[in-house]
C-alpha cells in the first residue's frame, strides 16, 4: 500500500506545483485506528499528508457537488462511478477534474474488526493481505478478505472507470462473486416475513440521516424528508415514518446507486440500508442491463425510454 500513497503524493504535489488544479481531495491519517479523514490539500508542500490504505471507504465524490474550483481527486472504483454520475447530473464538470485513479483492493469494515476482537483496539497494521489488530498486550491477525466491508466483498468494479492518472496497475477482478445472494434471500421470503425483515433492520434507526448526508447521490437542496410543504413524512422516531424515509430515499437512488457502501459505513447504528438500494440495483441490472456510472454517454434507465423496456407489470 505504501507505493499507492507515495504515488498519490507525488502526483498531487505535481498537479499543485504545475497549477493544474486548485486543490486535491484525498485522505489524511486519522486520529483513530482504521480511520482516515477526507481532506483537501492546496499547497504542494502539504501533499505529504495524503495517505492511502484500506480505511479510505468514504466516497469522495460527495465532496465534489457544485464545487467551482479545478480539483484533483483520488478515486477508487466506486468513487469514479459516482464522479461519472455527478457529471451526468451536472453536479461537476469533467474539465474541472483531474482524476487520480486508485485500483482498489477493498476497504476494511471497522465495525466487523471491532466486533471480532475482545479487546480495545490501539493499533491496526496492514501487511500484504493481512490485517494485524493490536490492543494492550493482545494481538490478532485477520486475512484482509475476512474483514472487508460487505459491498467490497462483492465488488466487480474495483478499478476506476474514469481517470487521468493511475497510481498502479489495475487489479484483477473477481467476476465469480454472487452479488445478489442477500437480495435473493429476501425475495424468497413471503410478504409478512419480508415486512418483518425490514422492520427488524430499521428497528434501531435514530433518524439522524447520516446515510443520506454521506451518500454522493443525496445532494438535493431540501430533502423530501425535510419538506414542510407538503410534509411527506413525520419527523419523530415513528416506525412508519422511518421506513418511509429509507424506502423513498432508496427509490431516489434507483439507477444511480453504485453500491459504494457509504450509507452503511457511516450509520452510527450499523444499519445495512443497502438492503433497500441493492434490490433496485439488481432490478436495474436485470431489467435494463444497467450499472450506474460506468460512463457519461449513456443516460440512466429512469430518464430514458426504450420500447424494449419491460412492461409486464402494466395490465
Amino acid at each position, binding site marked *: 500500500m505504501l507505493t499507492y500513497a507515495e504515488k498519490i503524493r507525488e502526483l498531487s504535489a505535481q498537479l499543485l506545483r504545475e497549477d493544474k488544479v486548485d486543490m486535491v481531495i484525498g485522505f489524511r491519517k486519522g486520529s483513530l485506528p482504521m480511520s482516515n479523514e477526507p481532506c483537501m490539500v492546496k499547497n504542494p508542500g502539504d501533499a505529504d499528508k495524503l495517505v492511502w490504505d484500506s480505511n479510505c471507504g468514504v466516497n469522495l465524490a460527495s465532496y465534489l457537488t457544485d464545487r467551482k474550483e479545478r480539483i484533483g481527486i483520488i478515486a477508487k472504483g466506486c468513487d469514479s462511478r459516482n464522479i461519472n454520475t455527478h457529471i451526468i447530473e451536472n453536479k461537476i464538470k469533467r474539465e474541472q477534474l483531474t482524476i487520480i485513479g486508485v485500483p482498489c483492493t477493498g476497504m476494511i469494515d471497522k465495525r466487523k474488526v471491532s466486533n471480532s476482537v475482545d479487546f480495545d483496539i490501539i493499533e491496526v497494521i496492514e501487511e500484504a493481505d493481512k490485517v494485524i489488530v493490536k490492543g494492550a498486550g493482545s494481538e490478532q491477525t485477520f486475512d484482509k478478505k475476512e474483514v472487508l466491508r460487505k459491498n467490497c466483498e462483492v465488488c466487480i468494479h474495483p478499478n476506476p472507470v474514469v481517470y487521468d492518472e493511475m497510481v498502479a496497475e489495475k487489479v484483477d477482478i473477481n467476476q465469480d462473486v454472487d452479488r445478489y445472494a442477500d437480495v435473493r434471500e*429476501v425475495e424468497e421470503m413471503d410478504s*409478512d416475513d*419480508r*415486512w418483518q*425483515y425490514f422492520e427488524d433492520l430499521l428497528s434501531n434507526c435514530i433518524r439522524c440521516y447520516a446515510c443520506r448526508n454521506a451518500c454522493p447521490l443525496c445532494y438535493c437542496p431540501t430533502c423530501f424528508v425535510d419538506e414542510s410543504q407538503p410534509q411527506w413524512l413525520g419527523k419523530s422516531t*415513528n416506525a*412508519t415514518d422511518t*421506513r418511509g424515509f429509507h424506502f423513498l430515499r432508496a427509490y431516489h437512488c434507483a439507477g444511480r446507486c453504485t453500491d459504494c457502501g457509504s450509507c452503511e459505513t457511516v450509520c452510527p447504528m450499523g444499519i445495512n440500508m443497502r438492503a433497500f438500494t441493492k434490490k433496485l440495483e439488481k432490478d436495474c441490472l436485470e431489467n435494463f442491463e444497467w450499472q450506474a456510472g460506468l460512463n457519461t454517454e449513456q443516460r440512466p434507465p429512469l430518464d430514458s425510454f426504450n420500447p424494449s423496456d419491460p412492461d409486464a407489470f*402494466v*395490465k
Partner: protein
Amino acid sequence: MEHMGIEKDRLHFSWISSAEATKFIDVVTQVTESVKALGPAKKFVKAG
C-alpha cells in the same frame, strides 16, 4: 413495494385510453376485489 413486504395485490398498474371504458371498468372491478380480499392494510399504516 412488494419487496418491502406490502402485499402484491395492493398495487396495480394499467394503461387505459380514455376510449377504453370497458377496460377501465374491468380493471377497477378487479383492483377493488383484490384489495377487498386482502382486507384493511396493516402495514405502512401509522398508528395514532
